[in-house]
């Protein structure tokens, strides 16, 4: 298991290959990658991601541990960036490896649902008109009820 909270960009392909390497016991590998999406108006300049150093790592590790208890997983990877990002930049990724695809898929969705609402990150969209904090969505909170 690897958890990385970092300001630096990461290479999705390199991380996926590294994660998948040297594990012949797992038949299924799922990755999820979150990308900074431009706003509907198409005028997003910067996405600023603030986090709570110290708590962030602990919260993500607790979420990953919970996933490993609920599903039969060979490995878990979580990378989450903070700082200033541009449209098209990759914000974060999770990867799961399991013997069966159902475990790999469900665990990845669980990780994403919890990272959205329980890991201490806050996003601010900066446009020509100023900055605006992204509001948490009711549907993201509701997604946790599934688990």
């Amino acid at each position: 298991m690897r958890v990385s909270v970092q300001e630096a960009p990461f290479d999705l392909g390199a991380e996926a290959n590294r994660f998948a390497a040297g594990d012949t016991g797992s038949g299924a590998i799922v990755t999820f990658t979150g990308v900074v999406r431009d706003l509907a108006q198409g005028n997003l300049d910067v996405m600023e991601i603030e986090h709570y150093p110290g708590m962030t790592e602990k919260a993500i590790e607790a979420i990953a541990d919970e996933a490993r208890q609920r599903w039969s997983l060979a490995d878990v990877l979580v990378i989450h960036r903070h700082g200033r990002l541009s449209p098209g930049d990759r914000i974060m990724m999770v990867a799961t490896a399991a013997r069966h695809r159902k475990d790999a898929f469900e665990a990845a969705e669980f990780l994403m649902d919890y990272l959205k609402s329980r890991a201490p990150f806050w996003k601010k969209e900066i446009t020509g008109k100023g900055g605006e904090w992204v509001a948490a969505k009711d549907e993201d909170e509701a997604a946790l009820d599934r688990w």
Partner: protein
Amino acid sequence: MMDVLYFAWVRERIGIPKEKVETEAATVADLVSELVAREERYAAAFADLSALRVALDQELSGFDAPLSGVREVAFFPPMTGG
């Protein structure tokens, strides 16, 4: 004496990311009342507690939680990770 941290728009409204607070508050809610009584910027930040979350020593908690033994309190809006 405890560290009180603010994130996102809570930090912006209060104007500082962190401060040391001398308090005898028994619960988080008591601490919030003390802060709100201090200055308008605190009142503005804590106007709607349903829009806020609190962590005690880096664990999510509730506003009715006791503060005894707690060294670090953090206030912030609902998280938007992922």
